[in-house]
C-alpha cells in the first residue's frame, strides 16, 4: 500500500519562484533590484531586475538609451560594494561617464574575452563574487550555451544581462526574462517578450536619462575655424 503524499497547501506552491498563476506575475526567491522606473518594476516579476536569472536585452541599434535604462540598478549594486563586469563590450567604456552615473570604476571589470565569451561569462556567474555581469556574446551563441549560463547563474545573487540582436527574438531561449528595446516617440520603448507570468500586453514607454536638453533641438551649432594652421578650414554651418 503506498502512503498518500503529504498534503501541500496551494499557497505554498505558489510561493515558489518557478510556479505562478496564469493571470499574475511570479514572485522571486531572491530580492529583485529596483530598476529605478516604477512603471517598469510593476511589470517585472519580483518588482525589479531579477538576480540569479539570465535577462536578455534584444536591441538592434545602439545609442537609444539602452544602457541608461540599467544605470540606476547598476549604480545601486556598485554602491553596495558589488563587483560589476562587462564582458566583450563592442566599444570602449568611457570611465568619466560611468563614474558620473554613480558606478565605482575600480570595481567595474572589463573583460576582453575574444572568442571565449560564453566561458568567461560562465566563470563570472558561477564565481558568486559579482553583483552584476553584462555581456555582449557573439551572434552565434547557441541555446546550449545559454542553458549552461542560466544554470551557472541560478542561486547566485547576480544580475546577468545579455545583449543580443532582435533577430534572436524568434529563437527560443532559456532566459526567464527577455526584453526588446527600441526607440520610442519620446524615450525608450520597452517590450517584455517573455516573463514568468501573464504576457505583457503593450510596450512601455520609459524616459531614460539623455544628454543635453532633452526637448529642444539646437538649430545648428556655430563653429569657428578649429585648426587655424591646417589647410582648407571648414566653413561654419
Amino acid at each position, binding site marked *: 500500500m503506498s502512503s498518500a503524499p503529504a498534503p501541500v497547501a496551494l499557497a505554498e506552491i505558489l510561493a515558489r519562484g518557478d510556479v505562478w498563476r496564469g493571470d499574475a506575475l511570479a514572485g522571486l526567491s531572491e530580492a529583485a533590484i529596483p530598476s529605478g522606473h516604477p512603471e517598469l518594476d510593476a511589470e517585472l516579476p519580483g518588482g525589479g531586475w531579477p538576480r540569479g536569472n539570465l535577462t536578455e536585452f534584444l536591441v538592434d541599434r545602439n545609442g537609444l538609451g539602452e544602457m541608461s535604462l540599467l544605470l540606476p540598478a547598476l549604480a545601486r549594486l556598485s554602491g553596495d560594494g558589488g563587483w560589476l563586469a562587462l564582458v566583450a563590450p563592442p566599444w570602449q567604456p568611457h570611465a568619466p561617464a560611468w563614474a558620473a552615473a554613480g558606478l565605482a570604476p575600480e570595481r567595474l571589470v572589463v573583460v576582453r*574575452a575574444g572568442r571565449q565569451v560564453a566561458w568567461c561569462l560562465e566563470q563570472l556567474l558561477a564565481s558568486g563574487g559579482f553583483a552584476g555581469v553584462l555581456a555582449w556574446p557573439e551572434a552565434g551563441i547557441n541555446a546550449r550555451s545559454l542553458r549552461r549560463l542560466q544554470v551557472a547563474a541560478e542561486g547566485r545573487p547576480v544580475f546577468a544581462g545579455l545583449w543580443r540582436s532582435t533577430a534572436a527574438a524568434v529563437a527560443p531561449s532559456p532566459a526567464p526574462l527577455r526584453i526588446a528595446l527600441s526607440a520610442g516617440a519620446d524615450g525608450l520603448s520597452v517590450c517584455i517578450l517573455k516573463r514568468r507570468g501573464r504576457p505583457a500586453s503593450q510596450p512601455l514607454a520609459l524616459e531614460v536619462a539623455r544628454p543635453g536638453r532633452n526637448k529642444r533641438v539646437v538649430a545648428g551649432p556655430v563653429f569657428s575655424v578649429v585648426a587655424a594652421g591646417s589647410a582648407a578650414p571648414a566653413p561654419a554651418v
Partner: protein
Amino acid sequence: MLPLEALPLRQPSSAVAARGRILACDPAAVVAGVEPGHRLSTALGLQPGLRVCERDPAREAKALENLACWAGRFTPTLALAPPDALLLEIGGCLRLFGGAPAIVDAVLAGCAGQAYSVDWAVAPTPLGARWLARTGAGIMADTPARLHAALAALPCAAPSWPDEIVVRLESFGLRCLGDLARLPAAGLRRRIGNGPVDDLLRARGELPDPQRAFVFPASFAAGLELPSRVEHAEALAFAGQRLCAALAGWLHARQLLARACTLHLTHDDGTHSAVNLRLGEPGADEGRFLRLLREHLSHLRLAAPVEALRLTADEVVARPGASASLFDRPAAGEGAAACLERLRARLGENAVHTLGLRADYRPECATSGHDPLADLPEKSPSTATFAAPRPLWLLREPQALAEQAGRPCWHGPLQFVTRSERLESGWWDEGEAEAAGDLRRDYCVARNRYGQWAWIFRDARGWFLHGLFA
C-alpha cells in the same frame, strides 16, 4: 608500497628489489604470483616481463617528507617513522573534522588522489598503530581496551623483530602477541632480551613512547621526477597534483597563505624553464592552485620534453585568523578575486582590467586600465567634473562621417542636441608614439532619425563619430 610508489618510471608489472629479494611489487605482478620476499630469480620466472628496480632510500625519504607536508592539513603534530610510515596525532583535531572516521576518510581520499596506496590503523599508541597498520586490515582501535584486544590477535611476526626472536617465540609455542602478554615479563626478558618486551609494553601504552615531531621546513620546495618524459604541457597538471597537495598541507601547517609560487620544469636536454603562478588573493587551497596551474599549462608550449618538476613557494604571507560560521551557509562560489585570476590566466594579463579615471580632457586619455587584483589605492583623486555630457561608450577610433548639405550624417542626417564644446589639449605629447597628441575638436551631442544619440566632433578634417550615449 612506498619503495615502489616513490620511484619514477613506473609501468605495470614492476617490482622493487633489495639484496636479491623482492621488497614490493605492484598489483599486476601480484596477479602473476610474485610476492614480497621471493628471490629475484623466482619472481622473474613467474613474470618474465617484470621490471625490477633497485630500492632508492633517498627518494623514499623525499616522498615521505612530501607526504608529511601534505598531512599538515590534518594535524600540526606528526612524526616520520622511516622507512615507510607516517604518524599523525589526531586526538587533538577530532572535533574539527567530526570524528576519527571522517579524518581517516579524508586522509585515504587524499592519498588516493596522489596515487599512494595506504595501510592505516588508528590506535592510542604510536607503536600500536604502526603494528596494526602493517596488517593492512584498517583497524580502528580508538580505546586502550580495543587496542589490547587488537594487539593480542597479531601474530608474533608482525612487529618485525629479528628473525631469530620470532623463531624462538614460535618454538615456545607463542603464536600471537596475546600469548606473550600473558607471560611474566621478567622471565620473557631473560629469554628474548629487553628490546622486544619494551616494544610490547610501548605498543600497549604501558611505557612512554615519545615521538620526534616532524618539523615543517621553513620554505617550501618539493620536487617530483616524472614517470615518463612528458611532451605535452597539459599532462603536467596531473603530476603537479602531488606537489600542489604538499604545498597546501605545508601552508596549512605553518598557517601561511601563498601569493606566488613557481613551477620549475627540468627538460630532458638539461635546460630549465619556469611557470609563475600568481594568485590574486593569497590562498592555501589545493584546488585553486591546480585550476590556476591548468590554465597556465593549457597555453604553454614546451621547448623540450620534461623529466622533473619542482614547486617552490616564492611569496607567502601570514594567514589572518577567521572564525568558522556557526550555521551552514550555502556554497557561495569561489569569489571575485579567484575568478578574475583564472580569467587572466587564460585570456592574458591585459584582457581583464578595471577602469580608472585620469585627469585628462582628451576623451581617449580619460580612461585608464588597472590591474583588478592590485591593492586599491586610497580612493583616487576625483577628476574635474565635466559640464558637458560624456558618453558611456567610445569608439576605438573616431569614425569619419559623411556630410550632406553641411550636416554630418550617421544613418541619416544628424540633429544637434547640444551646443558645441571645444576641447583643445595635449600639446605635450604631440608626435610621441602611442600618444593621442594635440587635439583641437568641437564636440557636440547629436541624434538621428532612429533615435540614436551620438557624440560627434568636428576638427580640421571634418566630422567624426566618437561616442554613443547608450
